[in-house]
């Protein structure tokens, strides 16, 4: 039987971002909401008065710079993986990981300084909020470190680092996100503390 159809009706391929990348983004959205809640709670509570005022330790600058640099090294590791440069990739990952640890220690150092200035977790919410914001961020940073560790293991297992460049691009995105989140928190604290 002859079938002569001139069909224009071709079902369109639907837009497809890589689902894993998309999942990562959604995950980051949920983290943003956690901090949106905490920082807006901060503002609402502050507006009610009875709020201690203190100097924000200047050491927070140091941790901020460290985290920014670690973002650069993370980026460098990714770029090296795309160029199949195994050595530089691993080096980049290690340096990022190390800087992440240094960042965490700086945050702990800041807490010690806060305690010296009589700002405690327990007490006026003005102080408690600072600890909570830093603490919850540090918690997420630790998850970022674990993610980096996994990528390090993968980079040693892979025959070619370029094989893991997609996964690396995800972990790098997450790391940049954690950096960006910190900068948001820092700016927020400078304005509202």
């Amino acid at each position: 039987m002859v079938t002569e159809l001139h069909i224009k009706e071709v079902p369109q391929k639907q837009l497809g971002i890589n689902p894993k990348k998309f999942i990562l983004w959604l995950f980051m959205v949920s983290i943003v909401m956690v901090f949106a809640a905490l920082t807006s709670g901060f503002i609402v509570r502050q507006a009610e008065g009875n709020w201690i005022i203190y100097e924000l330790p200047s050491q927070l600058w140091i941790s901020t710079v460290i985290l920014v640099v670690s973002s650069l090294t993370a980026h460098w590791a990714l770029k090296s993986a795309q160029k199949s440069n195994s050595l530089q990739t691993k080096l980049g990952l290690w340096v990022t990981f190390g800087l992440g640890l240094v960042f965490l220690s700086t945050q702990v150092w800041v807490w010690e300084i806060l305690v010296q200035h009589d700002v405690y977790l327990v007490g006026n919410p003005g102080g408690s909020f600072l600890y909570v914001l830093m603490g919850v961020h540090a918690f997420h940073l630790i998850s970022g470190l674990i993610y980096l560790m996994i990528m390090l293991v993968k980079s040693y297992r892979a025959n070619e680092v370029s094989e893991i460049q997609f996964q690396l691009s995800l972990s790098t995105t997450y790391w940049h996100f954690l950096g960006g989140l910190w900068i948001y928190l820092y700016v927020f604290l400078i304005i509202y503390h």
Partner: protein
Amino acid sequence: MSTANIDLMDEMGHDDHDHHEQGFLSKYIFSTDHKTIAKQFLISGIIWAIIGGLLSVVFRLQLGFPDMDMAWLRPILGEWINIDAATGMGKLDTEFYLALVTMHGTIMVFFVLTAGLSGTFSNFLIPLQIGARDMASGFMNMLSYWFFFASSAIMFISFFISTGPASGSWVIYPPLSALPQSMSGAGLGMTLWLVAMALFIVSTLLGGINYIATVINLRTDGMSFTKLPLTIWAFFLTAIIGLLSFPVLLSAALLLILDRSFGTSFFLSEIYIGGEALPNMGGSPILFQHLFWFLGHPEVYIVLLPSLGITSEIIATNSRKPIFGYKAMIGSMMGIAILSFVVWAHHMFVTGMNPFAGSIFMLLTLIIAVPSAIKAFNYITTLWKGNIIFTPAMMFSIGLVSFFISGGVTGIFLGNAALDIQLHDTYFVTAHFHLVMGSAAFFGMIAGVYHWFPKMFGRMMNRKLGYIHFWTSFIGIYLIFFPMHYIGIAGFPRRYYSFTNFDAFSTFTDLNAFISIAAIATFAAQLIFVFNFFYSIFKGRRATKNPWNSTTLEWTTPIEPGHGNWPGAIPKVYRWPYDLSKPGAKEDFIMQDVPYAETPESNLPHEQELAGLEDKGDNTIKVD
């Protein structure tokens, strides 16, 4: 690990995939198949619904028959029934009464109508209706269920500790919930509640992220957003609301945990307990309410939207008519989703908030009634002049519309900041949300089970039992909640153990007894459903491939779809999901995967053109 999943999904395209056997564990327990996970959520939800319902029976006994001897409940409730030494009468422990109400609310709102509803139908229908082999990440999906399971286990365990489960109500307002010494249920029970809810939030987020990613990325060819069934739109928007609101509850819970266990004062200020001042200074319990209701109000729509989606589908199919106002439905769901984030303070009118803020929130609250009303109208206009087929699913869907309207109307009263001074925290509120949220969402869920049971288990549920179940539930629910409005208007507050202590309320003794009897009868009627459900899984009549003559893709799968859903290629989509009773068509429905080229008799001019079938005056078109 999720890598493995993506690979698996590609693999499933091959036809030879089916014959590799899965073990029992990976098939039924730690399954990553969305259909199995959906059934796990459904059955867990049913179990929780029974538990939650039983709790309400106990406190309704107390409310309806305050003088009753409850000694017979001692075998189950043990120490929670206090035996009076002199008379030998058993009385419900007052603090346990509060625990019952708290757990009833928590279980119903979160475990049944969030996890049980979204977990079941989003999981089951999203891949099937958008034409995907599975979720974006089957592994995360499995984790989502098991987090829910862990959360359930902890919540369940909290019933068996000596101080009892959490008792600060489902909204867990501090200071009651923040001070373990305030009441027995604020101790370990509250801690377990918080742990369980934290796990629950993780579960919801894992699930929700997956739903969103799947809807956006895994739609089959041709399935554009304007061809998505309204069910999928509803699940999609629900997941987005959840993604944005549940993290806020997590933050609130975190601060509450710090207050409880680490001595901070986020929510606590200048409190005396037993005559002694607590060290906490400078906290704000109102802050907690803001954080809670920022989740809490969107949460009520998280509960309701999936049911509305299910209803849209069922009403259209069984009216044999396209849904009225498809785009308006999507638009109003979007409107609801956005507005649901800006009305939370209507739960806080009487917290001493600035009256100006109160009127802003009042305005926004009344605005959200508009998209809700649009939806209600669209259901009714879809039914209008339809060839209605009264399947049990259809009856429950119509029941939903009824509850949604009668409960929504009282929302407008409550949304008035001035009226709310009288009505707040009375049984009027209880009546309002049990109709509009509780019963409506519950009916949607039940309707969904009746409608998609054939796809889930390859068998049909018994119709007669379905009708009995519908009429008893429908009448029963109105008998319970309608009188409650009067009790509320009279000013009777929620969460009171006993009202006979107040002369003003003793006139309501009979009405309360009546409500209790209705509640117990309605609960009993649900057992018909439970029986029908489990019986039909094994003994139900075998289903046909498309028992309701629906148009959506899930009915193109085999009667019992296997792993990967379609044995061959995934169908492509050519048309919207509501080509029902299209003029000229051979049958009264055309499925979504039928090209316009095959239906020249019913195509509209622009569709004709799309299909390349526009009349050219020659006879080139011959379809075999």
